[in-house]
């Protein structure tokens, strides 16, 4: 299987504390993957490195068929290359409508000059409506996103990610603070997305991970402890010791 993202031998430390320690990780072009691990295992730092927010001290992060190094690119270049990221807390532009939020995320030329002269074509409006339908916000298109409920904001953010048409989606704790029904909807959205692209989900909630029904990577102290199906890793003695047993 070809790989979309290859992280090899990456280490990073903050003030002497090794947040990521010789981590290696790879994911294929259409794959759903869950990353679990105790607090401080380096899950969020891993995402920061891939999206360009944090520079690693050593190691390589290679992207796509041409094995382009992501370490020389800044956040916006990485995003344009096709990596989308969803943060732990919902970060949508609360002062703007759902429509505007989605329109901003839509995959289009991002240069200031072309954005200045951009006027939405009929197909763009149709695409936005289609996305809104998918995330269940079709009736809320012209409401300010600040008025939405917590779960709706999470979906809007997932919708914005889908609008970006990324090849890799990094999702940080999507189910946090959601009701059971909202979680099911979120699982469906992620599974659907993973049919055409790579999706990496960081999650604490075991039930949610089980519902995703995918390969699981367990992180501990900045490196991979175990990898495989959920049943496989939960039987692993190391995993039980550091994570599940507590």
């Amino acid at each position, binding site marked *: 299987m070809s790989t979309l993202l290859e992280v090899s031998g990456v280490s990073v430390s903050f003030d002497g504390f090794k947040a990521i320690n010789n981590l290696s990780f790879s994911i294929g072009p259409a794959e759903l993957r869950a990353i679990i691990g105790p607090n401080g295992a380096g899950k969020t730092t891993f995402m920061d490195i891939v*999206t360009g927010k944090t520079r690693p001290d050593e190691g390589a992060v290679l992207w796509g068929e041409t094995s382009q190094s992501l370490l020389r690119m800044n956040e*916006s270049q990485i995003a344009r290359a096709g990596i989308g990221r969803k943060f732990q807390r919902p970060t949508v532009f609360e002062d703007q409508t759902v429509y505007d939020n989605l329109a901003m995320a839509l995959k289009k030329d991002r240069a200031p000059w072309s*954005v200045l002269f951009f006027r939405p074509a009929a197909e763009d409006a149709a695409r936005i409506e289609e996305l809104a339908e998918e995330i269940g916000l079709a009736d809320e298109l012209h409401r300010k996103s600040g008025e939405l409920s917590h779960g709706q904001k999470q979906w809007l953010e997932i919708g*914005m990610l889908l609008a970006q048409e990324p090849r890799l989606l990094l999702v940080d704790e999507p189910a946090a603070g959601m009701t059971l029904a909202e979680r099911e909807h979120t699982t469906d959205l992620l599974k659907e997305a993973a049919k055409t692209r790579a999706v990496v989900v960081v999650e604490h909630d075991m039930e949610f991970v089980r519902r995703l029904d995918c390969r699981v990577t367990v992180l501990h102290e900045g490196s991979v402890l175990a990898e495989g199906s959920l049943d496989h890793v939960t039987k692993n003695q190391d995993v039980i010791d550091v994570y599940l047993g507590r």
Partner: protein
Amino acid sequence: MTRSFFARNPSVLIFIAVLAVFTLAVTLASEATGTGALSTSFVKTLGKTLCLCLVAIAMDLIWGYAGILSLGHMAFFGLGGYMIGMWLMYARTEAIVATSMANAQIPPTDQEIVDAIGTQIFGVVGSSDFPPIWIFADSLALQLMLVVLVPGLLALVFGWLAFRSRVTGVYLSILTQAMTLALSLYLFQNDSGLRGNNGLSGLQNLPGANNIPQADISLWFFWASAFALGVGYLLAAWIVSGKFGSVIRGIRDDEARVRFLGYSVEGYKLFVFTITAIIAAIAGALYYPQAGIINPAEIAPIASIYLAVWVAIGGRGRLYGAVIGAAFVSLLSTMFTGGQVPSVPLGFYTIDWVDWWQVLLGLSFVLVTLFAPKGIGGLVDLVTGRRPPDRHGADLGPDKGSLQEREAEQ
């Protein structure tokens, strides 16, 4: 989304209509073309006020919409004034010198005329040579280009350095203050080439217009200022109405998120910084011929702080708010500091408004910030009954420049 620009932004039409009616009213009441109810000097004051409204729109774009509190935009305003002032002074001195030397027995050579102009202009700073920066001063077209190019390039270079290093929030404000301070200190020097603290003067006299009364000239500049304000308002409204406006408001509320959407935040900031600097420069180039004089004190740091105060009092994040704030505060300021407001005798002390105006302005700024963060423009909301999103008082984004919920417009 098929509705026209004006249907989506009804305030633009209202603004243009109000501006047109105001311009007509002043024209009909001026000394040149009307009843003479308004004195020439007051027409000039009104014309200058329109220029201040234009620079306030620029400030609102950069601060109210993009969330960058630049405290240096009056430097660009002043530079625009200096650029047009150089031509006005050169061309007028040339006319005077040519007339006086025409009576000489031996006709003067071109070089002699240039030398005589140099002596006239730079005599006050003990020099008679033209500094290199005056090389284009004899050409109106080139000097008009410099009105846009010099402040534009300064903003481009300064902004590139600042935004590339991701300087934000209060640090950026301090940096812009340092820029305007450095520029004004430099210009205060006699050998800066712009006549030091004397500045450029006599700018109200248009070259070759000796026979045209100031009443007419003042009205021309008033019309030009009104036209520039109208065009500037349209341009600003157009910039913020589309997706570009969406992106810069996104940068104001959550810069990191915009970056992860794939937008180059630095590029957008630089774009807005430069375009607002150019708008400010054009406003300055129309202001100083009406003021008649420009000197380095005009670009002192306090000038840019006043600009921020106008926009805050008028209501940031809405274009008409900036215009209302600039017009209201600067006209009031003219009244109070011009001795047109009677003193208040308290028996033991007399409040003389010339001295106390700044205290009043400072107090009202604090009061507006605390109790009416939407500013005067917020009164419009009472009429239209607009509701901001309910976030229980939290900021709309995690960044320093983001609007507080109370300020947010629908």
